[in-house]
C-alpha cells in the first residue's frame, strides 16, 4: 500500500515535503494509525500524536486524502491510494503531522465550557428528566479532536475571531442543559459579527466529525435562542 506523508522537521527542513512510503502486508482490519505505527517503527523520526486507538481521546486528527478524520478510525482498505496524510489544515505546524492546537483550545475556554448554577445546590442530584437529558446527546460526546474546526473555511479566514464549530457546539451543550443558568451571558458572549455569525452553514464540520456530531445544527439552535432571547 502506498502512502504520501507530510514531513517537516523545523530544525533541519527549510520547508515541508511529502514523503512516499510503501507498506507491505496490509490486512483488511488495519486502520491508518496501525500503518503509521509500523512506519514509525522503521523510521522513528516520523511524528504524530495518538493515544487510545479507539476514537475517544481525540489525539490523532489528521487530514487523510483531503478530509479530516481520526487515524485510528480510518480503515486503510476504504482509502484510495496513495493515501495522502497531512496535518489538519489551518493550524501552525510543529513537526510532521503535529500541529499547534492552542488557538483551538483558546476558543474552547472562551465559551466558558462549564455548568454555571446560580441557585443553591441541592443535597442530592439536580433532577433532570430523560427528555431533558436527551437534549445533551449529540453534544457532550465531543472529543475535542479539532477535525471540525480545522476543516471550516470560516475558521481558516478568521481563526482569531471565529470561535469555530467545536467551541460553539460546546457552548450549545451548556445552553441546552436544563441545569445551566447562564443562558443570557452565553448568548451575549456570542453576539457580534465574528464569534458565531461567521458560520455560513458550509457543513464541513458535520461531514468530518468522527463522532457523528453536528455542530452546524447546534449553531442554528443557538441563533434561534438568540432571537427568542431578544423578543
Amino acid at each position, binding site marked *: 500500500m502506498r502512502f504520501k506523508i507530510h514531513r517537516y522537521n523545523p530544525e533541519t527542513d527549510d520547508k515541508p515535503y511529502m514523503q512516499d512510503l510503501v507498506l507491505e502486508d496490509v490486512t483488511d482490519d488495519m486502520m491508518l494509525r496501525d500503518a503509521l505505527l509500523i512506519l514509525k517503527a522503521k523510521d*522513528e523520526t516520523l511524528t504524530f500524536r495518538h*493515544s487510545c486507538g479507539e476514537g475517544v481521546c481525540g489525539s490523532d486528527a489528521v487530514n487523510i486524502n483531503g478530509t479530516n478524520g481520526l487515524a485510528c478510525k480510518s480503515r486503510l482498505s476504504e482509502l484510495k491510494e496513495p493515501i495522502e496524510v497531512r496535518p489538519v489544515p489551518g493550524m501552525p505546524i510543529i513537526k510532521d503531522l503535529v500541529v499547534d492546537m492552542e488557538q483551538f483550545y483558546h476558543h474552547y475556554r472562551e465559551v466558558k465550557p462549564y455548568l454555571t448554577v446560580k441557585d443553591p445546590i441541592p443535597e442530592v*442530584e439536580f433532577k433532570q428528566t430523560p427528555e431533558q437529558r436527551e437534549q445533551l446527546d449529540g453534544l457532550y460526546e465531543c472529543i475535542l479532536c479539532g477535525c471540525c474546526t480545522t476543516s471550516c473555511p470560516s475558521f481558516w479566514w478568521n481563526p482569531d475571531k471565529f470561535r469555530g464549530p467545536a467551541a460553539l457546539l460546546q457552548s450549545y451543550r451548556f445552553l441546552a442543559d436544563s441545569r445551566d443558568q447562564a443562558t443570557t451571558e452565553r448568548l451575549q458572549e456570542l453576539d457580534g459579527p465574528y464569534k458565531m455569525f461567521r458560520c455560513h452553514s458550509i457543513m464541513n464540520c458535520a461531514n468530518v466529525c468522527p463522532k457523528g456530531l453536528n455542530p452546524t445544527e447546534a449553531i442554528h439552535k443557538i441563533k434561534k435562542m438568540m432571537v427568542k432571547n431578544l423578543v
Partner: protein
Amino acid sequence: MSIENLERRTFDTLVIGAGGGGLRSALQLAEADAHVAVVSKVFPTRSHTVAAQGGMNASLANVLPDNWHWHMYDTIKGSDYLGDQDAIEYMCRAASHLVYELEHQGVPFSRMDSGKIYQRPFGGQSQNFGGEQAARTCAAADRTGHAILHTLYQQNIRAKTHFFDEYFAIDLIKDQDGFILGALVLEIETGEPLLIEAKTTLLATGGAGQLFRTNTNAHINTGDGLAMALRAGLPLQDMEFFQFHPTGIAGKGMLITEGARGEGGYLVNKDGERFMERYAPHAKDLASRDIVSRAIATEVREGRGCGPEGDHVMLKLDHLGRDVLYKRLPGICDMSKTFMHIDPAEEAIPIFPTAHYTMGGIPTNRFGQVVVPVDNGQESIPGLYAVGECACVSVHGANRLGGNSLLDIVVFGRAAGNDIKEYLKNNRYHRQIDEESVVTALAHLKRWDEPAGDGSETVSGLRAELQKVMEDNCSVFRTEDVLQEGLTKVLEIEQRMTNVHIHDHSKVFNTARIEAMELENLVDLAIATVKSALERKESRGAHSRIDYPDRDDVSWLKHSLYYKEGHRMDYKPVTLKPITVESFPPKPRVY
C-alpha cells in the same frame, strides 16, 4: 543542557498527570487558592480516564435498595480480602457525595423517569452482604469516563488551574532529608527540560497496561509515575495483581464495558452454552472480573472456544433489542461497527480477557500520602502523594470491582487535595533542593542523546518483545516455571536496554525520546510485576497460580512490596480494621 541554565519554576503543588485523579486534586487545590501546576504528557482530555465506559459506583439506591456498608462488603470480597478495610470504608462512605458533586459540576449522567441518576448492575455487586444483585453503577450511557474527565477539566478551566500540557515527567527531585520537592520535566514541543520546584508533589500518572501485548489501555499508559517512584528508592505494592478484563475485543483488546453484561448481555462458548452458570451459579455473568476472566480462559483451554482457532468466546447482546442497546451502550455499538463490522444488535461480539488495570502501585494511605515501612509501622514520605491507578491505597486489593476505579480517582483525588492543603499550612516555605538529584535526573535525560552500547536494539523492537514476554509468562494463569522463565527474560531485556540508542536526536516534539523513556519505565515495572508474582505462592484475586490453587491466609494475607534495588521483596500487613464498623474477616469467596 547544564544545570546552570536550567529553567526553574516554583509552585505550592505539582500534580503529575491530568486524568480524573490529578484533575480532581488540582481542582480542590485551585479552589483553595493554592498555587498549583498540572503537568501532563498529553492534553488533559486525552488522558485515559476518557476511555472508562460503564460507570462509577455509589450506593445512591436510585434503582434498587443500597447502602455504603453493602458496597464496602462487596469491595472487600471483590479484593479477595487483600484490600485495606479503613480505606475501603472511607471510599464507600464518600461515594454518594462525590457522585452528587460531579453531577453538580455538570456530568451528564443518564437519567431515570424520576429525574434521578441512572444506575446499572455491575459485577460483584450485592444487596445485604452477598444477597441479591445490586444496581450501584452511576452511568452516563457507556461514556462515563469521558463525561467525568471533560467535566473535571472544564471545572479546572473555571478555577484557572495552571496547566503544563505536553510535558513529560522524568524524575522526582528530593532534598537530603528525603522530602520530595518537585520534578524534572521535559517540554515535548521544545525538547527543553524544566525544573518544577514544589512543596508537595502528587503522582497521578495512571496505570501500566502497555506492559501487555493485548490490552485495553492507551499508548500513553506506561506507568511513568510508578517507575519514577521506584527510581526514587520507593517500593511498589502488590504489583502481581494485574486485572485482565473479561471482555476485550478478541485479538484487538478494545474494551467492551462490563455494563454490557450489566444490561443483560451474557457469554456463550462454541456450543452456545451460557458457561458462567457453571463457574458462578448465583452471580453468573456478573461475578467479579477475575472469576469471569478465568472462566473464559478455561473454556478456551479446554477446547470450547469459538472461531476457527477456538481462541475466544462470544458476548451476546442482540436479545436486548436495538433500542436499549443504542440508548444504553451507544459507544460500544459504534466501536463494534467501526473495528469489527459487527452490529451488536444482530451479532455476538468475539471477546477474550485483556490486560486492563494495575491494582498494584505506589503505597499510600487513605489521605493520599505515600507511605513506606519503618520498624513495626509505616511513615509517610514528606511532600509526596499518589492517587488513582498509579497508587495502591489499597481499595482494590487483589481484584478491583468494575465501577470502583472512577470512584477511586475522585475520592482519593479529593482526599489528597485536602491533605495537601493541611501540609501547605504547616510547611509555609520552600525547602532547599538537593542539586545532586537534579544532576541525576538530567543525566537520565541526557542518556538518550548519546550513542549507547552497540546500538543493536530499537525501542519498538524491545517494547514488542517485553509485551510478548508479559503476555506469555505473566497472564491470567501462572506457574513457578513460567514465571521464572518470565523473570529471566525481563531481566535480559533490562540488560539489553543498554544497547538501545535512538536515531532521532532532534529537540522539537521528539516522540522517539519520549518512547525510549516510557520503555525504560515499562521494563522496571515488568520486573516488579513478574518478581512479585513469582514470590507470591498462593492464588488470590487476579493472581492465579496453577501450582498453588488456593488462597493461603495464614502465609499470604499481606501486601507485597517490591524495591528496584536488588529486586528486593518486603511485605506488610493488610489493614483489616475499618474506621468505624466491624471488620469483615476473610472467608471463602463464592459468587
